[in-house]
């Protein structure tokens, strides 16, 4: 039983304004906070590629131009950061991961997304297929800024946002679940905001 915080009344406006859209423990922000563990990489699109790898082999790789030539979608989604901000109705442009996996003829149980700067994060294949994940390069009608993960980041809005790897450069296909960067430091392996899976064991 949680003790009452004497004199704390809180502010329920978030939930009232957007019923059913703000997961437990989150609050709505209108800014777009930036969180990352190190300096922002600035990869030029001429040098950028996106690869799908498995067991040491590159199954398929796209240059920036090849990626941009694929059919892109506009995605409107609510995003939820484990540090407790949620941002509603964000607008993205990107290529569905379904298309990429299909072109790579890839099959796996899990993926480990990898990024410039050494960042990684793990996801079950079922969470990056079926129209649930994109390689996003546009935000709010403009190219995605470097501090928000540009030139391209993964977008998996139904999981906590650390799963939406910034500066993404590819997916490693795995038959088992392997902890990525934050997952190694005690964050949850799956990260469902609606079940408040912030940390290992939640």
């Amino acid at each position, binding site marked *: 039983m949680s003790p009452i915080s004497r004199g704390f009344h*809180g502010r329920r406006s978030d939930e009232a304004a957007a019923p059913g859209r703000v997961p437990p423990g989150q609050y709505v922000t209108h800014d777009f906070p930036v*969180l990352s*563990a*190190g300096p922002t990489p600035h990869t030029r699109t001429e040098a950028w590629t996106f690869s799908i790898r498995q067991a040491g082999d590159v199954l398929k790789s796209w240059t920036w131009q090849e990626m941009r030539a694929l059919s892109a979608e506009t995605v409107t989604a609510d995003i939820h950061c484990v540090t407790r901000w949620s941002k509603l109705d964000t607008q993205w442009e990107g290529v569905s991961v379904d298309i990429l996996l299909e072109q790579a003829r890839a099959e796996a149980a899990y993926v480990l997304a990898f990024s410039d700067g050494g960042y990684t994060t793990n996801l079950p294949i079922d969470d990056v297929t079926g129209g649930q994940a994109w390689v996003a390069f546009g935000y709010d009608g403009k190219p995605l800024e470097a501090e928000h993960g540009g030139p391209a980041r993964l977008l998996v809005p139904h999981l906590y946002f650390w799963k939406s790897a910034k500066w993404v450069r590819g997916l490693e296909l795995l038959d088992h679940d392997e902890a990525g960067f934050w997952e190694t*430091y005690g964050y949850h392996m799956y990260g469902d905001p609606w079940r408040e899976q912030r940390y290992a064991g939640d």
Partner: protein
Amino acid sequence: MAGTAVRRRLTWQVATVAAVCDETATVRTIELRTPDWAGHRAGQHVDVRLTAEDGYTAERSYSIASAPGEPVAITVQRLANGEVSPYLTGELRAGDELEVRGPIGGYFVWDADDATRPLLLAAGGSGIVPFRSILRHRARSGTVVPVRLLYSVRSLPDVIYRGELDQCTGSVSVTYALTRQAPPGWTGHRGRVDATLLADVAWPVSREPVAYVCGPTAFVETVAEGLVRLGYPPQQVKTERFGGPGGP
């Protein structure tokens, strides 16, 4: 490093406020008594949960301001339109209870035991909080690793932990950058941290330093990119932006 994180489940526990201390007009340090605290590392966070009478709850993450081995303390800046920070910096007093869980985060941490690299700490505003933990940890450990602290703050009255920082001597040097207002006769840096100041204060790359940068996004971006331009390997520049501390 990677792989050493403890996979203990983090459960909420009731903490009692032992003391509160106003650091500036808008910043307060809150010392907690936690009955079941497994200990923390310098730079880690703690989650705080408040519960209103009608059961409504609000959670936030805060950097831990105290050294490993000391009681858990957080330092909170009042945000004008905040939901939680006005309560913590205004209403809360010794004897009150709230819930905490932690420690959280294992990347933006500094351990005296395996420290060999000269340490550069760059703080913007309340980004100083985890560095108080690091500096106290360093002092308690007796390590001789030298530290340079670069602290960007609006004015001297906005300096958090002023008394403690002013006592730093010898192998810990403190440089302020006053961005809004400097007192008459101020000979230190005025204005935001720029490339010149950074080159001046940062350890030369040849000393194989490690840098921790914490503050608002614009500050962190400027400093982290400035350090990379000075030749710091990106993996030796650990960053934390606030507005949402706590890792990812």
